[in-house]
């Protein structure tokens, strides 16, 4: 295991070195600083904004769906995850629509498309959540029925 790990680390250092040396060799210092700055911006935006936002949203949904079958919360959170990633994907296109001088770039109405997709995700999640809720209730009823018949049997036996 130790040997494999050491070999894998050495194997990784080669491409890492190629990449870092390539950047260092190709760019003057101020460009390297700029790349470094953008690398840091990515981490800060991701770790400092995006993930905390998803965690808070997730926690709020779990809170709101407390007492309902667990599947309902999961479906809502899953639907929001799909919607969130599609928003991230479409956001630059929406922001940039109409800007490029080339009329064949960004030819679609991205905001409009996104709105429809979000509606579709909302409706699908709502239907699935409703089904999960109904199923959860049926299971609960059956369990209740079973429990009460058990209780009745125990009372009889007792």
């Amino acid at each position, binding site marked *: *295991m130790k040997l494999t*790990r050491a070999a*894998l*680390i050495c*194997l*990784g*250092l*080669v*491409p*890492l070195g*190629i*990449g*870092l040396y*390539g*950047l260092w060799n*190709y*760019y003057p210092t101020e460009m390297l600083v*700029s790349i470094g700055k*953008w*690398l*840091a911006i*990515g*981490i800060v935006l*991701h*770790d400092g904004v*995006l*993930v905390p936002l*998803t*965690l808070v949203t*997730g*926690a709020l949904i*779990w809170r709101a769906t407390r007492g309902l079958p*667990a599947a309902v919360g*999961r479906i809502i*959170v*899953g639907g929001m*995850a*799909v919607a969130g*990633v*599609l928003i*991230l*994907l*479409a956001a*630059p*296109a929406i922001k*940039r629509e109409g*800007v*490029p*001088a*080339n*009329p*064949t*770039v*960004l*030819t*679609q109405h*991205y905001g409009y*498309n*996104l709105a429809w*997709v979000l509606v579709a995700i909302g409706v699908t999640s709502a239907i699935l959540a409703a089904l999960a809720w109904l199923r959860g209730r049926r299971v609960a009823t059956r369990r209740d029925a079973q429990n009460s018949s058990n209780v009745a049997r125990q009372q009889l036996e007792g």
Partner: protein
Amino acid sequence: MSFPTRPVWLYRVNQGLHVATGIASIPLLLAKLWTVYPRLFSWPIVRSVGHSLERASIAVFLAASLLQLFMGLLNTLQWYPWPFTFRETHFFLAWVIIGSLLIHIATKLPLIAQHWRRVRGGAPAMASTARATALATTSATSEPAGGWSRRGFFTAVGITVAAVTVTTVGQSFSPLQKLNLFAPRVPSKGPQGLAVNRTAAEAGVKDSARSLDWRLEIAGPRPATLSLAELNRMPQFEATLPISCVEGWSQSARWGGVRVRDLMEHVDAPTGSGLRVISLEQFGPFAQTEMGPEFAEDELTLLALRLGGEVLDIEHGYPARIISPARPGVLQTKWVRKLEVAS
């Protein structure tokens, strides 16, 4: 270096896959990072030299991956707000990502091995429960509230990957064209039913390309100058070849014109010669391109004068452009002014 010229859609698949996997990686990366986010706050920050190296390699991997995907996505929208060049940065960052990922796998190897050994050991259900408990106790917050099962989590990630792929891949994979909702291109939207990467205005050729004085110069052992009428009198050929852009979109089209190898024969170029193609473009890194002999001699490589049976639109390179099989769109030089035989 010689490149393959068949199948003609080789670069189309290559670049379509490149951009599609990049887009699919967005939810994959976010999901991966999301599951390990609580470890960001693990304490102490650094336990040992090894641990500090591990964390450093993760920081490199994370930062490089985020920038790589973000700059790739924005570049496909022709939105490039960075002072550094795209091509070199994207290329070298890819090496950095491969390296840091290998190192990351190396540092996690004991954990990975332990997991698979347990599963093979015969009691997978128990093992995974034990593992889940272990994970929950080492980092209580790493289990999302409400508790996603492993299968549920992978299902959600899979659906997200499918959603971003299906709504964008139509720009290169024609059968899914109708579901293309978020890709920057609809390849059939453009003059003569084909999108354009660089317009005549951007290339600064609006006047020079329409000039009646346009002549094709061919430099070789017996140099020649040909007018558009003379080119049209030469044997004409048709080829159905895709335009495949480095930005991911692609579409097949029917081109008509003169075979490049006939033009080379016209100036007595020795066999095995390559070609330098010079455009009317005044600026841009692809105003002049090199074509290896494998493409120059290919029977499908044309100096195209027509697209879909019509005279080329100026946006597609009027009066004459290069079209060849299995090559990136940026090398299909438009508004050709001169061909130079190069040995």
